[in-house]
């Protein structure tokens, strides 16, 4: 589904990713863990197509497509989804109009007609139930006045609406209380599917108690320095990131 080879990326003149390799198969859930400043969020931004990040070397193949040739909106229409660490508030743009525009952009890409009002509302009902997003929240402006947990639930709601092939969750657990963490995780788990892959980026192991990964990778100084099964996450939690640094030194 996603093959990253020797990825180098920088912001302004600072190199952040320094030769990252990663292979994610269809239906797999991979977790990337790492200390602050290791390049986790940069990886999410580069995948989503944020323009202030410059890829200086390497390649990203997304289900047979050269991802780096596409802009952010094209990537999304091809089925890539980024759940933001800090979802943006957009006053005046209604959540539902936003979702309708996004769904219709994707449908147009697939050569389909715009979704009917009836089908759209049915879809909203179904998907908002998944993350317990109340009518009050989904009818409002995008993320405006939402609490941290509500914003993250809205991210998962959008993911469920758009049914991506590949979802990148960037520190989705940050700022969540236990209940919100459970709701968000259950939403993600309900979407696990043999044709859909996940890349879960997190600093803490606790999210991985809820969203159990197939593979865990450790990112340090812009490279994957260690990979292993889900148990690696427990080891990291117990020993801390310094252990990896010593281990790989």
């Amino acid at each position, binding site marked *: 589904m996603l093959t990253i080879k020797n990825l180098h990326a920088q912001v302004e003149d600072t190199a952040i990713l320094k030769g990252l390799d990663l292979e994610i198969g269809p239906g797999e859930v991979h977790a990337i863990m790492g200390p602050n400043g290791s390049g986790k969020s940069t990886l999410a931004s580069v995948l*989503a*197509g*944020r*323009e202030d990040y410059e890829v200086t070397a390497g390649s990203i193949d997304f289900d047979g497509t050269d991802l780096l040739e596409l*802009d*952010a*909106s094209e*990537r*999304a*229409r091809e089925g890539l*989804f*980024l759940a*933001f660490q800090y*979802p*943006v*508030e*957009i*006053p*005046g*743009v209604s959540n539902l*109009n*936003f*979702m309708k*525009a*996004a769904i219709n*952009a*994707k449908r147009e*890409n697939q050569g389909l007609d715009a979704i009917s009002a009836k089908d759209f509302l049915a879809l909203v009902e179904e998907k908002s139930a998944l993350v317990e997003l109340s009518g009050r929240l989904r009818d409002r*402006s*995008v993320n405006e006045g939402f609490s941290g947990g509500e914003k993250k639930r809205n991210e998962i709601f*959008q993911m469920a609406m*758009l049914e991506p092939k590949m979802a990148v969750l960037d520190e989705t657990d940050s700022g969540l209380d236990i209940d919100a963490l459970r709701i968000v995780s259950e939403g993600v788990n309900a979407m696990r599917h043999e044709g859909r892959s996940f890349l879960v980026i997190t600093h803490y192991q606790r999210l991985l108690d809820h969203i159990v990964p197939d593979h865990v990778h450790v990112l340090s100084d812009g490279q994957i320095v260690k990979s292993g099964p889900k148990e690696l996450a427990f080891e990291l939690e117990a020993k801390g990131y310094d252990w990896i640094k010593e281990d790989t030194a």
Partner: protein
Amino acid sequence: MSLASDKAQAFVAGLKASSGLDLLAGSGRQAMSDLPVPTRKSERWKYSSLTPMLAKPVTTAPVPKGWPEGEPANPIPGLHAYRIVFLNGHVVTEASDFPIAEGVVCMPLSQALAEGRIEAGDEDWSHYHTREWIGAVHAAHFQDGLFLSLDEGVVLDRPILAHHYTLGENVASCPRHRVQIASNAHAEVVLWSSASESSSGMVNAVFEAKVGSGARLGLDKVQHEQGAVYHLAHEHVVQEKDSTFRIHTVTVQGHWVRNELNVIQQGSGAHTMMHGAYLPKAQEHVDNHTTMDHTKPHCTSSELYKGIMYERSTGVFNGKVFVREDAQLTNAYQQNANIVADAGASINAKPELEIYADDVKCSHGCTVGQFDEEALFYLKSRGIEDRTARALMVQAFVGDVLEGFGQEEVAQEVKRLLAQRHGWM
């Protein structure tokens, strides 16, 4: 005599003198030679130059034979309204539809004058010609307009549409509207200006209104002029005790536009709402000068103007708020927000507050910015194309102004025209 005034004289040489209000016309003619032709040296005209307009002399169009074929007298689909239509400043009665009801006088200004409905000494409420050369030009050459008078407690069952259409080259149009709403009466008026693609010249319009105690007047004002028309509009509204005046001014399209809106609250407990939006593109120019004058206690005003400047367009917002010494417990709010969408565009924005009372609540804000790149990226990251994402954000930005029109049909048509013009969905 300076070159500038030679040019100004040549510019107005083809204008036909107004008739019916001889005193006003005479003062106008006098003021034209007494007042300076505005230049960019004057603060009020610093960012709006009349020089290009004055370079091409204009003429009053002959009285039309009728309404042009194929052109809708009512340009707003679905709007169920009484109607008075103007072609190049002349009223076209055949295409108009006046209300006939007890306590309502609605007719062309020329007819009201002929019937002696305007008393000597009461012909001019704004004294625009004593302050501005352009006002003097209007006073000396005004043609016709809407005359509306509502008796006490009368509520019009439908809005009145005053539609002005410019057709032809180097045409001078000087419509003059007069609206009088007696106590506790209520009227909604739609002022719509349009122009054909090949038209050019000047529209120099004056709208004067008195809103009696407890009365209400709502104005939906839309400028949608193709061609190369210089549009100078002046609204002067006087409000009595406990009255409400609302105006929404939206410039959909206009080659060069200057709106000068003055509202005076003359009685306590009055409320004023002045909202506006402008979205010029190409090399268009839109200037909004507003004055809110609070003279009595316990009054409120709410002013919100929003602009999006595209391409090489230029804009001006100047919002003056006076709170006079007697106007204690005034609550005045003013907000002007602008997005400069393209590098070649510019806006000159200036809020001005003069407060002479000590127990008042006044707030104002003025912003000039660009698109929120983070929000744009968020929208695009969901598969929405850049163009559509920008359109969503623009509509959100001006949405609160557009939603506020008195007539839903006007709001819908303005949104449709803007969507068409800017390639929104």
